[in-house]
């Protein structure tokens, strides 16, 4: 009796397992990818989909060095020292509904952004980045098939500022009067969105009207797998052909996945930088010598190599290397614990331990608790007693001034360095004043203002180098590490490239034998 029951149970289990079968294999022409978040945000979002899905294309996009490169605009011209910018559109481009791309359509998109801002988005809110892009815009118009932006003040790098999301172009017919979408997104990209199950998957089909010819894959399914371990498991189980987007592989996973010959990991620099922000409005770090001691005490190379698993490079200049020659060479102090001890001895160690603040929201994405512990040990070795505080609401803690150094990561919305200096460190910046950084420098403010309107590339570069040298000496914030982003595909997928803004050109993906 018991034997029969066992056999029956085993048979049942076997039937269930067999019935479920092996996970369906991707057929020829279909590619299945996964991302940590939903790359479709829906009809109420300003963009509907993330740029990566290739449903829409921008006028200008960025390459792997944050340089503006042509997308729907093939070229641009600057006039009146940067008060007028004219973009020439690519010929023969059609939206996925077959209607042609016109300069009027581009103008309608920009006007829609201006009308609905500020508006939240799952990707880039129409807020601070919009202000950097279009804050000085007086008029935008279509002229003989070209798009002209008239600005109230000279802007040296408008293409860099509007690159990506802020120069998205979709068919004006896709928008309702409210600025929401009436139905599906209608763009010019290699793919169309044909199915979307919120929080689960987006299904893309090749756009027959794409100007660059049909992409290699007929269909791409992008699944949402929020858990980092589950993402890699799905890859290893052969259910998906790759992982894309910000944080696709966490620093701790890159080594093991890269060691597998069946996978190809693509690591490239990103717009994300880990910074340490000092509270110089109170106690120990009001003393410039102790801020210098803290910087000398920290072995940034070791943090990048070990704790961030080699997915980051040690911080130096305030602007990360993705800013190209705008990043000041040779700025940033070396690791010198001996000198740090001397400085602490000279300044006198504080009675209270310094508080290293970390946001609990960021500890899941980066090994911040580990890094904070290493920072604590480094400071203590230099003679500065320290403790680590992990808080949920770091904003409230910082506004109360109850911290000494804050570890956090920041992204830049575009290639415009002005954003970081103006939003974070200028004497009137909300970050500086509300978060009690206590950094007041008239010389810095003047230099930032001067650099923002300098349109000569050489002069501009020199001004931004001076800004960074000033910050390297004053140390209100120091860059700890520049973060790369790692994505992966099986070795059967080729053509994988990633921009600094996590955009993978899905249209360029090709099967490999």
């Amino acid at each position, binding site marked *: 009796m018991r034997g029969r029951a066992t056999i029956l149970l085993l048979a049942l289990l076997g039937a*269930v*397992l067999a*019935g*479920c*079968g*092996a*996970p*369906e294999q991707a057929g020829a022409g279909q590619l299945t990818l996964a991302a940590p978040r939903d790359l479709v*945000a*829906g009809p*109420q*979002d300003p963009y509907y989909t993330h740029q990566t899905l290739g449903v829409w294309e921008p006028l200008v996009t960025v390459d792997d060095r944050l340089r503006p490169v042509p997308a729907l605009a093939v070229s641009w011209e600057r006039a009146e020292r940067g008060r007028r910018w004219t973009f020439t559109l690519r010929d023969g481009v059609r939206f996925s509904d077959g209607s042609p791309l016109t300069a009027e359509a581009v103008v309608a998109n920009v006007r829609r952004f201006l009308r609905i801002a*500020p508006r*939240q*988005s*799952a*990707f*880039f*809110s129409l*807020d*601070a*980045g919009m*202000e950097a892009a279009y804050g000085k815009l007086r008029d935008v118009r279509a002229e003989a098939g070209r798009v002209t932006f008239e600005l109230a003040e000279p802007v040296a790098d408008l293409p860099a500022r509007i690159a990506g999301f802020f120069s998205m172009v979709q068919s004006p017919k896709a928008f309702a009067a409210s600025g929401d979408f009436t139905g599906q997104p209608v763009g010019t990209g290699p793919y169309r969105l044909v199915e979307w*199950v*919120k*929080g*689960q*998957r987006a299904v893309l089909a090749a756009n027959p009207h794409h100007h660059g010819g049909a992409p290699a894959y007929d269909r791409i399914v992008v*699944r*949402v*797998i*929020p*858990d980092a*371990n*589950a993402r890699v*498991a*799905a890859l*290893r*189980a*052969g*259910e998906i052909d790759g992982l894309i987007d910000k944080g696709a592989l966490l620093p701790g996973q890159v080594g093991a996945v890269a060691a597998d010959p069946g996978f190809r990991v693509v690591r490239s620099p990103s*717009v*994300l930088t880990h910074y340490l922000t000092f509270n110089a409005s109170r106690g120990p770090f009001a003393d410039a010598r102790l801020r210098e001691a803290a910087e000398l005490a920290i072995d940034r190379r070791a943090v990048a190599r070990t704790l961030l698993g080699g997915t980051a490079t040690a911080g130096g200049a305030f602007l990360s290397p993705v800013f190209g020659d705008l990043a000041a060479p040779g700025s940033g102090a070396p690791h010198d614990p001996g000198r740090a001890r001397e400085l602490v001895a000279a300044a006198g160690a504080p009675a209270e331990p310094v508080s290293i603040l970390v946001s609990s*929201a960021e500890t899941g994405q980066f090994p911040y608790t580990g890094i904070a512990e290493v920072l604590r040990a480094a400071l203590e070795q230099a003679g500065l007693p320290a403790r680590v505080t992990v808080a*949920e*609401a770091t*904003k*409230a803690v910082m506004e109360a001034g109850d911290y000494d150094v804050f570890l956090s*990561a*920041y*992204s*830049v*919305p575009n290639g415009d360095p002005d*954003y970081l200096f103006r*939003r*974070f460190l200028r004497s009137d910046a*909300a*970050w500086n004043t509300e978060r009690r950084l206590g950094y007041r420098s008239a010389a810095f403010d003047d230099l930032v203002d001067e650099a923002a309107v300098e349109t000569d590339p050489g002069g501009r570069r020199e001004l931004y180098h001076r800004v960074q040298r000033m910050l390297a000496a004053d140390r209100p914030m120091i860059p700890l590490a520049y973060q790369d982003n790692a994505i992966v595909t099986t070795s059967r997928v080729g053509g994988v490239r990633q921009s600094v803004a996590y955009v993978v050109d899905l249209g360029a993906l090709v099967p490999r034998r």
Partner: protein
Amino acid sequence: MTAVVLRRGAELLLALLAVSVLVFLLTSLAPGDPAEEILRRGGVQPTAAGVAALRAELGLDQPLFTRYLRWLGGVAGGDLGRSYADRSPVAAEVFSRVPATLRLAGASALVAVGLAVLASVRLALRPRAPLSRAIALVTAALTGVPPYIVGILLISVVAVGLRALPTGGDTGPGAVVLPALTLGLAGAATLLRLLRADLADALRQPFVRLAAAKGLRARRTVLVHAVRVAAPNAVTAAGVVLAELLAGAVVVETLFAWPGLGQLAVTAIRQRDVPVVQAYVLVTGAAIVLLLACVELCLAACDPRVRRR
């Protein structure tokens, strides 16, 4: 019986109102400014003007009590507000997720109740057999290991190693097996400990000795007589375990990318999407209150002593 139902109904409404106050207070008083968090989603520092405008649009500049009344009025009319994150109606989003969670909870309950009943009977019949000892050991281990670890193990062995089942997502009929096993095993362990104690209690009753004396087989004594005595407690235990399953679904749904309420809640918490979090807590809170009320009614129906209390 009608009086019992009516009285319990009134109590239920009060309990739900208390849940609504708690839900609203806890989510609204949580530190951090949702408006700022939402605007910072691309990793870009928001402007003060943008934050102020969004606060006004979301009604966050209103006094707490006004916000509560407005929210409660909406809830009473079936309107759970709009998501801060993507401005879509929350009620539609939440209810579209209910079937997936119910499917997972149902499958896990089957696993939990099935395994727990089988194992507890086995343990009652032959407490000293090697298999029984093994079951007791595995149960103790399962109680100590969090479902996340069990889930990862199942994924790496069954999905990655054997490629027998998908690693996650609601991709086919087999997709529910691994998450249901993960969640069900944790429930089975809890339920088994409760059932085993009840069954052991029942087996110490004089009628068991009487049954043995008159020559009834041990199997029949346990399955027919002792189980019936232990049943009311088992129903209570099952109710508690089901409530636990709903709570555990948050972790398991995220791990297996299962498109249910738990995953929705985790995403919403990460994004500071307060209306969605409120709706999740309210709906699961109401479900648990209702579940426990059902358990009580079941008990009242089969045991007259409960009715008089």
